[in-house]
């Protein structure tokens, strides 16, 4: 009987080690960032607020300063790390961007905690690889919410501060429901507060929060704009079809819906706040197998069927929504926003070179614009 117990215990220990190793590897996977020619400094979010310093959400901030007068733009990648195109589009700016007018600040892992876990019971892949000419670059697949290992327990009802609005309990771990944050709040609220401090101290003029959305969600393929960004967003929305070859709508940020970046950053700082959404079939509830391939290709027969049944707010066919398409939409939309900003406010220009646009990303693939860490001297890890 002792031998039987030992065998069964050994079986349990093996499963524990295999599973535990997988979870540990995911949480501690180091993602390489090859600093491009335009990166002039890298600072920590904790430099702006002690309450986040040294924590898992003390993310890197990459600064691309042209040295020439102009505005300051902040790109937020990884607000929701289960939306990988938002992080990778920001990655392309850090590895390729060269500001010629104004200054750019980029966060690749705005909610780093959420990038270390996938949706519980969702059977998501823990990582994915972008193929390049020299091999591949592996990235963490993340979640919409901060890891329960870093923030727990959740309340029965999440009462947003300072509005007092009641939100779903789980959204107390949702980075894009915690703006403008609280200095003495949860780690997610403190991360938002730290970003607000940074936005105020660095006098950021324009914030773009990058996202992806399921096709069954009505806020998709669009720019959500704070009222002070409506003119800019409308301009960009009009220019994109002619200049870049794809459509992106424009929506107003609801004044009564609190916690979101497009509302609170605009209300609690001088910055204009915009949020970009690209389509990601991987997130749709009607999807089939949740695989790395599905994540990258955006091909899913069940989401296509949902589209034929009129259940979607964005088109989809057998070609899906490849991650190159989603990343290209984001890079082009950011570049077009900077160009439109400069036309509206020529005394505070923004100009960036070296970042591939929509057509280029599709033609050459995202991997073409990711550089080899093994042959680069300036490499950091997320």
């Amino acid at each position: 009987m002792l031998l039987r117990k030992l065998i069964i215990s050994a079986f349990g220990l093996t499963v524990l080690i295999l599973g535990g190793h997988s979870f540990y590897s995911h949480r501690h996977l180091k993602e390489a960032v090859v600093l491009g020619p335009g990166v002039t400094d890298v600072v920590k979010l904790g430099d702006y607020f002690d309450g986040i310093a040294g924590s898992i959400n003390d993310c890197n901030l990459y600064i691309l300063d042209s040295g020439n007068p102009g505005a300051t733009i902040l790109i937020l990648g990884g607000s929701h790390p289960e939306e990988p195109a938002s992080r990778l589009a920001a990655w392309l700016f850090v590895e390729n961007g060269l500001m010629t007018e104004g200054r750019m600040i980029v966060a690749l892992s705005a909610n780093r905690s959420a990038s270390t876990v996938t949706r519980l019971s969702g059977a998501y892949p823990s990582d994915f690889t972008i193929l390049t000419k020299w091999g591949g670059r592996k990235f963490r697949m993340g979640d919409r919410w901060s890891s329960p290992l870093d923030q727990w327990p959740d309340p029965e009802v999440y009462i947003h501060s300072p509005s007092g609005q009641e939100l779903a309990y789980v959204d107390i771990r949702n980075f894009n429901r915690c703006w403008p944050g609280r200095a003495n709040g949860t780690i997610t609220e403190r991360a938002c507060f730290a970003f607000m401090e940074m936005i105020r101290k660095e006098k950021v003029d324009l914030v773009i929060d990058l996202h992806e959305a399921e096709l069954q969600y009505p806020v998709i393929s669009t720019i959500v704009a704070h009222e002070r960004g409506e003119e800019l967003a409308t301009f960009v929305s009009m220019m994109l079809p002619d200049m870049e070859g794809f459509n992106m709508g424009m929506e107003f940020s609801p004044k009564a819906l609190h916690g979101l970046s497009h509302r609170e950053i605009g209300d609690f700082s001088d910055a204009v706040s915009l949020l970009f959404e690209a389509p990601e079939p991987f997130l749709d509830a009607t999807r089939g197998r949740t695989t790395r391939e599905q994540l990258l290709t955006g091909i899913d027969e069940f989401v296509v069927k949902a589209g034929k049944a009129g259940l979607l707010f964005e088109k989809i066919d057998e070609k899906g929504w490849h991650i190159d398409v989603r990343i290209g939409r984001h890079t082009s939309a950011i570049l077009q926003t900077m160009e439109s900003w400069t036309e509206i406010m020529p005394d505070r220009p923004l100009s960036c070179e070296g970042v591939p646009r929509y057509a280029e990303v599709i033609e050459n693939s995202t991997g073409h614009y990711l550089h080899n860490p093994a042959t680069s001297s300036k490499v950091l890890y997320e």
Partner: protein
Amino acid sequence: MNLLTTVISICYYVFIAYVAILMIINLIRSRKWEQELLYVIVLLPFLLRLFRLK
């Protein structure tokens, strides 16, 4: 609030450790292989959480 969540978290981990120990004791005392296997399987998520792996 942070103090409260910290206290709750510590209590939670103590509780997990307590339940895990109970299950290990039951595993040792058990005389049926089906129960032993069940204890081992049920124990896994408790240990993953206790070791802060998931």
